């Protein structure tokens, strides 16, 4: 994976997830962060820090990104969500606009 094609997402606890840029861009918010004109810190460093998202949730979110890409390309599988994560995930989804 080339450096330019990846982005680093950092959770509230400081865990770093390095994922494909196009996967991250499933989130409209992240897409804006990385593509907005003018040089925001995120665009420059190619990393986004989420002080309000826990590692567990962010991991789930990253899984979702990849699942969503597959789903969009026609591979229709179930995306499993543990019930206890539901509420937090929903809030994160609202925040990330996915």
């Amino acid at each position: 994976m080339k450096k330019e094609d990846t982005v680093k997402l950092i959770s509230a606890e400081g865990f770093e997830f390095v994922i494909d840029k196009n996967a991250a861009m499933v989130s409209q918010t992240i897409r804006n962060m990385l593509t907005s004109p003018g040089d925001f810190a995120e665009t420059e460093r190619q990393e986004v820090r989420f002080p309000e998202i826990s590692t567990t949730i962010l991991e789930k979110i990253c899984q979702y990104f990849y699942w969503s890409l597959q789903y969009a390309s026609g591979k229709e599988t179930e995306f499993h969500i543990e019930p206890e994560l539901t509420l937090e995930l929903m809030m994160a989804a609202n925040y990330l606009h996915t």
Partner: protein
Amino acid sequence: MSSQKKRNFQIEAFKHRVVVDPKYAEKTWKILEHAIHEIYNHNASGLSFEELYRNAYNMVLHKFGEKLYSGLVSTMTLHLKEIAASVDASQGPLFLEELNRKWLEHNKALQMIRDILMYMDRTFIPSTHKTPVHELGLNLWRDNIIHSPNIQTRLKDTLLEIVQKERGGEVINKGLMRNIVKMLMDLGPAVYQDDFEKPFLDVSGTFYRGESQQFIECCDCGDYLKKAEKRLNEEIERVSHYLDAKSEVKITNVVEKEMIESQMTRLVHMENSGLVNMIVDDKYDDLSRMYNLFRRVASGLMLIRDVMTCHIRETGKQLVTDPERLKDPVDFVQRLLDEKDKHDKIINLAFNNDKTFQNALNSSFEYFINLNPRSPEFISLFVDDKLRKGLKGVSEEDVEIVLDKVMMLFRYLQEKDVFEKYYKQHLAKRLLSGKSVSEDAERSLILKLKTECGYQFTSKLEGMFTDMKTSQDTMQGFYEAMGPALTDGPTLAVHVLTTGSWPTQSTTTCNLPPEILTVCDKFRTYYLGTHNGRRLTWQTNMGSADIKATFGRGQKNELNVSTYQMCVLMLFNTADRLSYKEIEQAVEIPATELKRCLQSLACAKGKNVLRKEPMSKDIGEEDDFFFNDKFSSKFYKVKIGTVVAQKESEPEKQETRQRVEEDRKPQIEAAIVRIMKARRVLDHNNIVAEVTKQLQSRFLPNPVVIKKRIESLIEREFLERDREDRKLYRYLA
């Protein structure tokens, strides 16, 4: 693990509720406001998108959306006012560039702000029905910059000035223009129209009004059109370079109105260079330009067409009524054809083969060809000339072309039956004298006439061809039957003509020389012997003869003469001098014919096989005639034509006319009967209308004649008048 997660979730939920600190909103907004300032100052690189987004997100989430929104409006307004001041302060030509630069900056800033405040855009704005951030930014720009009193007029004036400069031939910064115009369009169609398009069209209108005035005073029509075309293209190009595509129609309308429509009439009638001159001089380019320009305005083509029609009718009328032209029918028709070709070519090359123009041309020709009552005769004479000699050595295709052209003229004729009459006469002469160049051409023309006018029109003409063919066989049979008994005498060639098929000739007899008479009698016996119940009359006025003559100094010639001439010449076998009276007595040819025949024998230069005393051009009853011993000719064969004006003389014309009228009567009657049979009852006017319609493919019947025919039919009890309404006629079966 799971319980811990649960706790996490509870704590988070709690955290949301905790933030009710009244200063929270103020603090968060300060962060965002600062960010907006930084963005406008190009200082955004240190900012964290996520932080700003999160703050805006939280503000909206905590019901501070209203504060966020109004804060945005006032902050942005503040910045735009600063920008307005800086744009306003820019000097002269830098004005547009500064405006453009600031616009691009604003756009970029606006995009960033919108991205940061996206959550507000997504949730708060739709639910409160406020203007979305991007649109808000554009509106604020419009209100604070474009519509600020100083900038608004300055912008408009600058733009118009630049356009004017470009019209004057200067090179301008098209890219900048495009950007500024694009900005106006981005701000909404209303902004573009009010702040630029309307004044632009007004100014253009004034400009072109002035320019067209100036051009029309100093240019001729062709140059003016070139200039107008150039201007039009320039405007179209301008639109494609930097204006809204929708403006094209509007601006071209302005140019069309000011440069074409308002000057159109003057252009067309311009002295020495107007439409008529262009047509006369075959200026295809100018004509084409005029057509394409005038086509753009409502009544433009109509104007061209009307003027062209007038011109064609006028020149055509001059042509057909010029007494000079009437002297040479062939030239007359050739001129008509040339005229037609000329205008066909113009319509083809310059007027886009416009159907309405073709129709105008046709109707003009129809109009003036029928002005001259002799047109049918002349057209037939033209064909006669072509078929006699004009088409010799011409390829089949070219023959067809000539014939097609003749047919085209024929179509214009109203009195087609007159043409038929003459054509029959001329065809008869051609066939009998064996002068037709090509039978194929003859047949081809008859076929064309047939397709045009139907079987009836040509059946007699075709009958003439059949007679010719049958006569050949008859002659062959005759000579076989006679065998050697005939070898001594003169060779006889008889054409047996069916009465009715051929132009009726008053049967004029003459005394044939005895040598000829014997052969003729033999033929009569043979013919009547093979065909029962037929009657043969000799049409001596239509025949011809080849005779061998020996002149003084032993010079021998073969003379090609008419039957009458032969009769006269044969008399000189036994006498050297004969008076007019003696000749008349011996041959018994009608006086007019005899005079004509003597004239051609004695008075034609180079063909005067007879000598006349006294020498004069005309034949008198007291004249004496001598055999001209000194006759000589370069050629062995000498053709002595009869002095027949190819064209008909006045009395002949009257006669033909009368015959035509006579022939029309039964046709009109037949038409009346056909119509009445179908309608049973009809009033006078309708009958006349229907008859005219039925017969117009052949001729235009005169209403007076129709009335006479109706009366005659009433007399003969085909029709009767209604007892109550005298205008009504009833058909009597």
